[in-house]
């Protein structure tokens, strides 16, 4: 019972670290669009759909407080365990922006939804914005195959790891030999799977900026 309690507390702690997801927005007083669509409409559930080889064009206007004709620098990133810079484009005047192509590595191996971020800065102003894009690739990709193999191997390994180490034999029962208590084991297994599903749900709604 004490071990079950420890495992339950562990699960509760995992959930306690969850923080609410942050909303998409453009900061710094700029207006911005991606391929002509405003950023606030392109969340993870409604991403901008692009095909392999398509470009992503991020454009915007400088804040009203910025002086006309000033120089600007636009940087565009894609987020995959940290930000990978795709482009850095200088500009002048009241508009800024840049056009990038999503790296071949992502479009070929793991098409799907990605977060594209942009920053634009000039003299006395800085704007940031982000949007989600979905690279079309179909359900059967290299990433799906690798993920399926890893998940199955991990599941088999996890089940094997639960089994007792060699030499652990109990002789506590009245007949002189203990037997596995299946209902209790099933409860423990179900609790772990439930915690894993909750983790997947919570992590899917986390904003990565709370970590980095």
């Amino acid at each position, binding site marked *: *019972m004490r*071990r079950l309690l*420890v*495992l339950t507390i562990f*699960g509760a702690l*995992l959930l306690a670290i969850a923080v609410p997801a942050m909303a998409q927005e453009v900061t710094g007083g700029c207006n911005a669009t991606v391929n002509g669509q405003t950023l606030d409409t392109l969340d*993870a559930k409604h991403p901008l759909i692009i095909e392999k080889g398509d470009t992503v064009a991020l454009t915007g206007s400088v804040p009203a407080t910025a002086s006309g004709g000033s120089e600007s620098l636009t940087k565009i990133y894609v*987020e*995959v*365990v*940290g930000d990978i810079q795709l482009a850095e484009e200088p500009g002048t005047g009241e508009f800024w922006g840049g056009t990038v192509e999503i790296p071949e590595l992502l479009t070929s191996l*793991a098409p*799907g*939804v*990605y*977060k594209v971020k942009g920053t634009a800065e000039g003299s006395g102003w800085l704007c940031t914005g982000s949007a*989600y894009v*979905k690279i079309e690739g179909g*359900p059967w990709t290299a*990433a*799906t195959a*690798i*993920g*399926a*193999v*890893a*998940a*199955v191997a*991990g*599941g088999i*390994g*996890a089940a*094997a*790891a*639960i*089994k*007792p*180490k060699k030499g*652990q034999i*109990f002789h*506590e*029962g*009245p007949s002189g030999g*203990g*037997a*596995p*208590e299946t209902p*209790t*084991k099933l409860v*423990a*297994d179900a609790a*772990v799977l439930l915690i*894993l599903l909750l*983790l*997947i749900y919570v*992590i*899917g709604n*986390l904003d*990565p900026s709370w*970590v980095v």
Partner: protein
Amino acid sequence: MVGIPPRKWAQGKPFSGFRSGLLLGLGAALILHQIGWWILDINTLVLLPILSGLLFAGRAWLGTPYR
């Protein structure tokens, strides 16, 4: 009088559980990305596998109940 014998837990292999949970978490992250559940970021590619590893290490540490 013969009572119900006490429950005993036979500990499993926590390190093996951690490795397997890590692998399971990585696989789940890739599959869920491909079906559009989430994006690949530090949470899904690093945090989830580590927490999954810890979770299954905990389950392996808990082990199998015997009576």
